[in-house]
């Protein structure tokens, strides 16, 4: 069975993602559920750091957090590394707090990889990769950013995920 692909239609272009349900079954299934429910539609890339990653899927243009489902288990110990253009789950400092937000690594971020089952060692679970539209990712990475309230690295012009769909 071919790996599930998801298309992120954004105001910066289209990004096609291939999910790794074999190595990250919970994260992939979780992501698919949010896609199908339309959660990602209208969310923005609210945190963009050049040379690091672009993060989104959680907030709307008003920087309001969209409601999410229950947090999922961290699957970072699946051996998959935070290489450039891989997709990983964002979370708070609590290792198993990931819900809907995700990020796309824009470089090889070794320090985000799983090291140990400790508060500081858990790392971030990679559950997919960009298979087309890396130029769009690069474009998002390059946008000008500023501070909004307590949030820093916010794109000055919204980069909106207008629609996220499963590719049939």
């Amino acid at each position, binding site marked *: 069975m071919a790996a599930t692909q998801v298309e992120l239609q954004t105001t910066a272009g289209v990004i096609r993602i291939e999910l790794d349900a074999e190595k990250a079954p919970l994260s992939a299934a979780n992501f698919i559920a949010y896609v199908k429910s339309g959660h990602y539609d209208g969310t923005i890339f609210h945190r963009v*750091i050049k040379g*690091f*990653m672009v*993060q989104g899927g*959680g907030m709307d243009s008003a920087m309001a957090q969209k409601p999410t489902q229950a947090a999922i288990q961290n699957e970072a110990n699946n051996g998959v590394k935070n290489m450039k253009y891989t997709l*990983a789950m*964002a*979370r*708070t*400092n*609590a*290792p198993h*707090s990931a819900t809907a*937000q995700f*990020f796309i690594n824009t470089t090889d*971020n070794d*320090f*985000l990889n799983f090291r140990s089952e*400790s*508060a*500081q060692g858990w790392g*971030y679970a990679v559950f997919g990769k960009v298979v087309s539209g890396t130029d769009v990712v690069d474009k998002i990475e390059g946008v000008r950013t500023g501070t909004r309230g*307590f*949030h820093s690295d916010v794109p000055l012009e919204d980069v909106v995920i207008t629609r996220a769909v499963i590719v049939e």
Partner: protein
Amino acid sequence: MTALLTPRLDQNGPIATLQAPDRWQRIELLSDLHLSEATPRTVEAFLHQLRTSQADAFLLLGDVFEVWVGDDAARHTGFEQTMLAAMAAAAGGRWLGFMAGNRDFLVGPEALTRAQAHALPDPLCLAAWGQRWLLTHGDAFCLDDTEYQAFRQQVRAPAWQSNILAQPLAQRIETGRRMRDASEARKAAQVPEHYADVDQAASVALMTTAQATVLIHGHTHRPTSEPWGPAGQRHVLSDWDFDGAQARGDVLELSGAGVHRRPVSPRSSG
């Protein structure tokens, strides 16, 4: 050679050196406690550590406090005054060294006197039992963070600090409160955290000057013990948090036998 009875701080060379007295058998290092009124459990874990540790001396390597708006904050009752007195009492006469971090760099002589603590320069070479270690908080070496380095240069300038300390205390307390709120908001936000690590080349160069093969620092909140540079080692201290969901904290014990990392829990002793 006559025995050294009290610790001696030499600031003549390119890098300040703290020479430990001969009677010190154990020195404990810790950092990044980020204490405030919002962290009562972490405060208690710290005081418990000071009280019950077998160490002869404690070197606090920065960010003991989440924020410090000036020594005058400790002149009246409140968190600052209570903390400084509690530190002095808990240390029970043992030597307390205090190195400023990027949050509490405004801690001054008046506060240190209240805490019965001694100012430590950053960076600092520690010499004990025939060994030498390079100690630093860590922020000064995160060279990739150019924005922070510019900020650091600004806020460490005496003129800037005089200006800030000349502001009314109430104003500085308000600024401190806003900084803590921002810090709390960041903790609730989703990460990954982007951070610049200590620059290896720059720190190794300083280790060479200090004739120290071991680097010890905090600041990054990413504890590790690993080879560092062509012939060195580094140990990074954990930050402390016993008030949140992820309890953590550690100390590094230095003795003639080397460096030993000991995790801290609120109920541990010794």
